């Protein structure tokens, strides 16, 4: 009898242990599943809000620099104050929204670079204000947002030998190296740009002028009629400041070799600028402008602290 009693207790204890183990297993398994559930609830720290804030700030600042540069300003401090004030207004207004999603943001101007905006707004030959054929557009500068919009019919018709025939060109000279950008007609309805580098190698890009017979040449963005033109990507090889000049806007018989509009921004103050453009409102004109601005952006929330410097120079060659 004693033996049988002992066996009964052992079975009971064994069964109990098994039951406890099963329960523990279930609890463990469930904890693992629940952890997985919790972990997938949050899609991460949500850095997209900070990136969106930066994208919004950049696009606002770029358009502000561009718009303010094209307006006549009485003096540079007015221009700077106007820019800084616009940035402050945007920063404070946007902050009302970001605070509602528990993030603190700020955008501040740290510095601005004064410059000049040189433009010819009406179709005209590319001579200076007193109709000289060869002239300096800007001296010792960097240039951004350099665009020309020319009619094909006005260009000289030398598809193959623009250099030998002295067609119109824009020259970039930093004292040691000179890069020349020739504009001329290509075959049939085309417009061509031929770039001559300091070792006299010629590279040509050609594009169809389109139905209106006009073409846009974006020199700093290196595009011709909206298409990439690798020949014009020489700005990174042009060290230091350089002179920008137009040569042979008229040919030997004083006939125009180019007609259209253009605009560019240089990082040289108007009072120190040596230019053939008119500083008192004629064509082409030169006015005060912002060349670039540096901003400091901060985005701070419970999970993210993000701070960055923005350099705003719309249309710069390295932009």
């Amino acid at each position, binding site marked *: 009898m004693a033996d049988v009693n002992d066996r009964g207790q052992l079975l009971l204890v064994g069964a109990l242990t098994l039951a406890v183990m099963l*329960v523990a297993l279930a609890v463990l398994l469930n904890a693992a*599943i629940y952890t*997985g559930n919790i972990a*997938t609830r949050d899609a991460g720290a949500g850095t997209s809000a900070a990136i969106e804030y930066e994208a*919004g700030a950049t696009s606002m600042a770029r358009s*502000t620099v561009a718009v303010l540069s094209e307006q006549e300003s009485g003096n540079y401090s007015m221009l700077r104050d106007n820019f800084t*004030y*616009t940035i402050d207004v*945007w920063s404070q207004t*946007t902050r009302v929204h970001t605070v509602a999603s528990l993030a603190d943001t700020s955008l501040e101007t740290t510095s601005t670079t004064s410059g000049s905006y040189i433009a010819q707004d009406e179709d005209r030959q590319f001579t200076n204000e007193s109709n000289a054929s060869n002239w300096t557009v800007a001296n010792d500068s960097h240039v951004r947002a350099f665009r020309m919009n020319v009619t094909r019919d006005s260009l000289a018709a030398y598809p193959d030998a623009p250099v030998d025939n002295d067609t119109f060109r824009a020259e970039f000279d930093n004292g040691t190296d000179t890069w020349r950008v020739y504009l001329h007609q290509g075959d049939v309805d085309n417009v061509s740009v031929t770039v001559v580098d300091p070792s006299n190698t010629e590279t040509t890009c050609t594009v169809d002028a389109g139905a209106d017979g006009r073409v846009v040449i974006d020199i700093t963005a290196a595009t011709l009629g909206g298409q990439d033109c690798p020949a014009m990507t020489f700005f990174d090889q042009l060290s230091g400041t350089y002179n920008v000049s137009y040569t042979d806007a008229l040919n030997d018989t004083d006939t125009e070799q180019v007609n259209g509009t253009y605009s560019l921004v240089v990082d040289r103050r108007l009072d120190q600028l040596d230019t053939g453009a008119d500083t008192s409102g004629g064509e082409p004109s030169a006015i005060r402008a912002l060349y670039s601005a540096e901003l400091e952006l901060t985005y701070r929330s419970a999970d993210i602290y993000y701070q960055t410097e923005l350099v705003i120079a719309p249309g710069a060659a390295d932009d």
Partner: protein
Amino acid sequence: VTDRGQAHALEAITAGMLLLASVLFALQVTAVTPLTGSTSSQHIENQQAALGEGLLSAEAENGTVVPTLLYWNESGRFHDAPAAGYHGGGPPTAFGNVLDETLRQRNIAFDVNVHYVRNGNRERQAMVDLGTPSDHASTAVRSFTLYDDDRIRYENGTAGPTLANASYFAPDAAPDSRVYNVVEVEVVVWRM
């Protein structure tokens, strides 16, 4: 006799523990996993939040949101909408069409609210009101900057007067700067 009493007590406690353990076991083996189907599933909420965010950023990139914000009738409402916003679907603009095609046609309801700043306070203008969101709604937000020289749109989509000269729901945050106001567009989505 005393010994037997102790054994009974122990037995009773053990039985009680067994009972509790089986209840615990029964509860724990029926786990609610992330894949358990239901309208309040976390996965569906995440998915809808991502859908809303993707829609907003794609349309911001396409430039259709700002023209819709400017589709404003100077009498104090969006064109052809009651004062509380459109309640039959998205506005009759490119952005509204995308909202309808992406959300409403898949039986996802949405509200679009525009938050703007007046004297440093956040205020709300409803653009689309398809009802009160459920408890399991997801939201996506994005900010847009309006400038003084942006033009409000007439009903046929052509440009009207500039914001600086028009009567618009949001005030000019700073009349002497080119920034008119910064608005936040909020898209709230939930399953119908």
